[in-house]
């Protein structure tokens, strides 16, 4: 499992989720802190492509052996792609939470929502 890291260039939601903005779409995943708290991930239950997600609400579930956790959407929009590789290799969420462990790509609904998210420094300050 990788060491703690919170890359610059991502936007962070206080419920330990990140978003990487790329024009009108964004990639979502969970932070190093979240995967560490959860332990070894054994299952990722993705949403379906086309589903609308709302900032601050759950859009997927991630499970370890003895815990299950809602994954919170950092921004609102429509799911345009899910990371199909996580079905067979959910451990990628632990091994590479910001890379191969990405969860969904979303066509953003409201660019203004990004104002409410944190940068890496602010998120790390929240973690204390």
């Amino acid at each position: 499992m990788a060491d703690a890291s919170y890359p610059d260039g991502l936007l962070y939601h206080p419920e330990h989720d990140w978003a990487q903005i790329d024009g009108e779409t964004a990639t979502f995943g969970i932070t190093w802190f979240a995967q560490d708290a959860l332990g070894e991930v054994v299952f990722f239950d993705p949403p379906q492509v086309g589903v609308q997600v709302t900032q601050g609400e759950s859009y997927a579930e991630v499970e370890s052996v003895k815990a299950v956790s809602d994954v919170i959407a950092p921004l609102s929009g429509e799911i345009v792609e899910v990371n199909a590789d996580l079905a067979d290799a959910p451990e990628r969420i632990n091994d590479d939470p910001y890379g191969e462990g990405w969860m969904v790509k979303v066509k953003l609904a409201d660019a203004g929502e990004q104002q409410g998210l944190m940068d890496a420094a602010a998120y790390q300050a929240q973690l204390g």
Partner: protein
Amino acid sequence: MTPAAPTAPADDQRTIYERSQPGRRAFVAPALDVPARPLDELLPARLRRSAPARLPEVSEPELVRHYHRLSKRNFDLDTGFYPLGSCTMKHNPKLHERVAALPGNARLHPLQDERRAQGALELMWNLQEALGEIAGLPHVSLQPSAGSHGELAGVLLTRAYHEDRGEHRTKVLTPDTAHGTNPATVTMAGYEVVKVGTNADGGVDVDDLRAKADEQVACLMLTNPSTLGLFDPNIAEIAEIVHGVGATLYYDGANLNAIMGITRPGDMGFDIVHFNLHKSFTQPHGGGGPGAGPIAVSERIEPYLPRPQVIRREDDEGAAFLLDEERPKSIGKLRGFQGNYGVFVRSYAYIRSLGAEGLREASEVAVLNANYLLALLKRAGVAEYLPVAYDRLCMHEFVLSGAPMKRELGIRTLDLAKRLLDFGVHPPTVYFPLLVDEALLIEPTETETKETLERFAEIVAAILREAAEDPEIARNAPYSTPVRRLDEARAAKQPVIRQPL
């Protein structure tokens, strides 16, 4: 890291399917004593099975040896101390197996005419009466199959009660210390769960309860003593608040073993109580069932009890016992037939063995044993690493926190639990209740001796001393068990839940 795949399993790890050889058998069918007819005449080919189920092919000696050996890979209550909190692992009296196996019980068909099942119905009626007296509530249904099934019955009864009065309530309150079955049951019964906080003494946060109790609340589900092993002295006030908004008060009987003959849920104001006959009333746990979860209820809930009810009818020829299916307001059936009668036989035998005085003594000694073990674990060498979560006298069980142990010694509650296995002791319940960090919930029960409790306390102290020297020992425990720590993540990621054949 991917662990090595199992190749040819050692003999003691083989399944019954891996012992199978074509042509071997145990069963011999009784001779065909009627004229044989072509199968096609009896059952059209398209409805018939084309390939047999690939069941094992083994002889009786192989079958017996296989399962006998498997049994030896289990730890059990007849072998050693089993202080599994909230599970009440008390001795299972051996008489009970004998009486349950009497042919008049074991071979009695559930649809036998009531006139020819009077002994069974009288036993059930007597058990209903006894459980009602113990609960302090007048009416009992024996039907639910387990505690969680009793809970479901209770919440469905609550729904029927409110709906019969024309009220449609939406929420059920559960304490944040509740067993997971409580919120799961609430959802199945179509209600929304609202959590109530815990106060500094481990009881219900009465202010929080008052704030959340409104006309939308159908029920409060509570255990008293709580899952922290503490009796909530505010119970009368709690009942008043709940009844004040017209809701019912539900008692999860998981912890009844502390209070038999001392105080009664009905007298505390509860409307519905479930019993776990496999906890307080000695039905053996069977490695995860069977159990039984009868419920006792107040007058106002009685009309909604499941069908059928065992009733007693007096006439000129004496008393007769009947199964009453004519219950117009009943919630209906929760399962087939009359419930787990074989469990009733054992629990009834237990109640008749102990009687009023014995049941009270059982609860007294359960509480005495728990407090004695707590006193032993509060001594130097243990208490600084495993402090009691709520430092009061406990009831039949108590909660320690392994948080200082994790911080100071670098071993978690899980490690302590696994190391206990090497000493021939079943670990306490771990990581429950969720409210306490690194929790250990310890319930010794009344059937353990003083010496057993002392030995357990010594083992815990020894493991902590050992961890102070070398925490790796506990972290890698156990060592002496049939297998060592298992890769649960692998089992969950790529589930193999049947033998590939």
